[in-house]
């Protein structure tokens, strides 16, 4: 039976669903970009405002599928905030480019719903449902400018590969189920790790690695990042990957993934390969979106350290480290892709590094945001990325993962080269080339950049406030 308390715990997700349906009906009655935009923003703000109310009811198992605890709610709030940022960026971006930009908001709402289900999932069924809700929305979002060849290519590439990954995922789940007879994560911890379970779990990890674009499942990343519209890339890089990671940590901690040494070895190998390959492939990129794609591969590799350490350190510390790193990564990545969105002229995207030559002189404000974001990605002190990386070192040190930490240091060193290369490019004397990117200056997009910049330095200079919030979000 579902009680009223259960419904309150689910309110953020219910509001999201309601907003999606309302937005759909609003489009059906009369197409109005501004109306759908305002409806979406109101829905996201409403869901965000109800998160603290839902937090009073935690932890609560709502149906066998969902466990609403503070861990899930903190990530849901993070995803909603990121969604809000993306929606604000989408307004001017798609308003100029698409004939019918209204459905973008609908798809973002359903994708956020999938992310929320993933964050609260405690069962393979909710795992799959959440993942598919998120992915199917992303297919359409990536290929939204369907007259653009590259966006269409990116969408189809993501569709086909994601479908294959889902196949692996379901097969892995079936193997685990065949051996244990249960689909709940928490029931797996008592199951002895037989060969069937290990093969099943490795298949699941492979499917998840695809979603997180870990090496060697990363081949789609650069093309999809480049082809997708910049605000959608921002969404893909943050919410989609973050939700999968949040679920993976819950699965690992609740399901006792650390018990089987074979799995820990697989995860460590994935982490090591991603850190090295991601950073090495980014070195020679002349396209900012591709560069950020490879950098995201490396960052997901860094984050795997938390997961590997999660089997050795307490689950609550791993959760705190993961959520803080994700928060920092969200702010940073959204700032970077937000700048790309703001700088893109209406007929194309400012993605080539040549577009950024002399940006400090021609557009000092977006250049400052982008430079700060890149420094944060590199993990320079006073930025959010530094504190995030500090958490990774703490988790790795507690888990005594010295090899992975050494690779993290090497990777960060490599990373500094290509991040600073972009900043140097921006600092070059301005060249007056015709067709330089001009910012159309949509107000809400600039406002979003201001907020992101404040958060980026706020998290770096005074992380205490957020950390206090996160320690309450301990994973049981």
């Amino acid at each position, binding site marked *: *039976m*579902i009680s009223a308390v259960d419904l309150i715990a689910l309110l953020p997700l219910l509001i999201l669903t309601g907003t999606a*349906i309302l937005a*759909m*009906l609003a*489009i*059906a*009655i009369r197409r109005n970009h501004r109306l759908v935009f305002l409806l979406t923003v109101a829905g996201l703000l409403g869901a965000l405002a109800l998160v603290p109310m839902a937090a009073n009811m935690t932890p609560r198992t709502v149906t066998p599928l969902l466990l609403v605890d503070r861990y899930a709610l903190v990530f849901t709030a993070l995803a909603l905030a990121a969604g809000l940022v993306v929606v604000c960026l989408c307004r001017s971006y798609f308003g100029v480019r698409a004939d019918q930009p209204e459905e973008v908001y609908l798809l973002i709402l359903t994708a956020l719903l999938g992310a929320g289900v993933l964050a609260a999932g405690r069962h393979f069924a909710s795992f799959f449902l959440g993942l598919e809700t998120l992915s199917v929305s992303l297919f359409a979002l990536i290929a939204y400018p369907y007259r653009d060849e590259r966006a269409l290519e990116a969408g189809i590439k993501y569709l086909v590969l994601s479908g294959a990954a889902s196949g692996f995922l379901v097969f892995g789940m079936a193997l685990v189920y065949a051996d244990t007879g249960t689909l709940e994560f928490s029931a797996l911890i008592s199951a002895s790790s037989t060969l069937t379970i290990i093969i099943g779990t490795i298949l699941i990890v492979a499917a998840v690695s695809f979603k997180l674009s870990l090496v060697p499942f990363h081949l789609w990343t650069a093309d999809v990042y480049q082809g997708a519209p910049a605000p959608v890339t921002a969404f893909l890089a943050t919410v989609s990957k973050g939700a999968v990671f949040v679920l993976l940590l819950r699965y690992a901690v609740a399901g006792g993934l650390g018990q089987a040494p074979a799995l820990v070895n697989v995860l460590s190998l994935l982490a090591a390969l991603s850190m090295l390959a991601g950073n090495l492939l980014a070195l020679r990129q002349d396209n900012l979106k591709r560069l950020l794609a490879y950098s995201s591969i490396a960052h997901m590799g860094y984050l795997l350290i938390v997961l590997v350490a999660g089997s050795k350190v307490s689950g609550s510390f791993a959760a705190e480290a993961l959520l803080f790193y994700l928060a920092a990564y969200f702010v940073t990545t959204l700032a970077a892709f937000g700048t790309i969105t703001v700088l893109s002229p209406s007929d194309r995207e400012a993605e080539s590094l040549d577009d950024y030559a002399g940006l400090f002189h021609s557009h000092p404000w977006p250049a400052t945001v982008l430079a700060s974001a890149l420094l944060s990605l590199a993990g320079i002190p006073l930025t959010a990325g530094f504190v995030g990386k500090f958490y990774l070192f703490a988790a790795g040190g507690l888990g005594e993962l010295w090899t992975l930490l050494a690779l993290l240091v090497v990777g960060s060193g490599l990373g500094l080269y290509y991040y600073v290369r972009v900043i140097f490019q921006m600092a070059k004397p301005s060249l007056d080339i015709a067709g330089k990117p001009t910012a159309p200056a949509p107000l809400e997009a600039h406002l979003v950049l201001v907020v992101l910049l404040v958060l980026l330095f706020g998290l770096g200079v005074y992380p205490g406030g957020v950390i206090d919030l996160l320690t309450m979000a301990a994973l049981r």
Partner: protein
Amino acid sequence: MSDFVQVSQLWPLIGYSAAVLVVIGAMLAIPRFLSHERHARYTEEPFESGVVPVGDVRVRLAVQYYPVAIFFVIFDLEAIFIFAWAVAFREAGWLGYLEMLAFIGILLASLVYLWRIGALDWRTRRQRLQDSFLD
């Protein structure tokens, strides 16, 4: 062990499958011995109930066909969920009723959406334009 089907219960199915294989095998094998090769004007033509085939194999279907097919599959699938609920109607109780009401409500909303954006309109864009001139 009640979950598992005993092998002894499967014998009719196995026998039936074997019979199917034998019949098809016989149908394929017997003409080989009885017939003799003859090439005439219409030997290579595909035979479909005596109707003469027309045109090429590669028929280009209008894109409208595909959305309608997909909508059919989607709504058909939803019907299965409703069927599963209907079977357990009394056990599901009022809660199940409310949940199904929400489910069907969302389906209806999406149907309204599809209808309003013209996804159910079978005509091509040019035909729609012609019809709007005729009105």
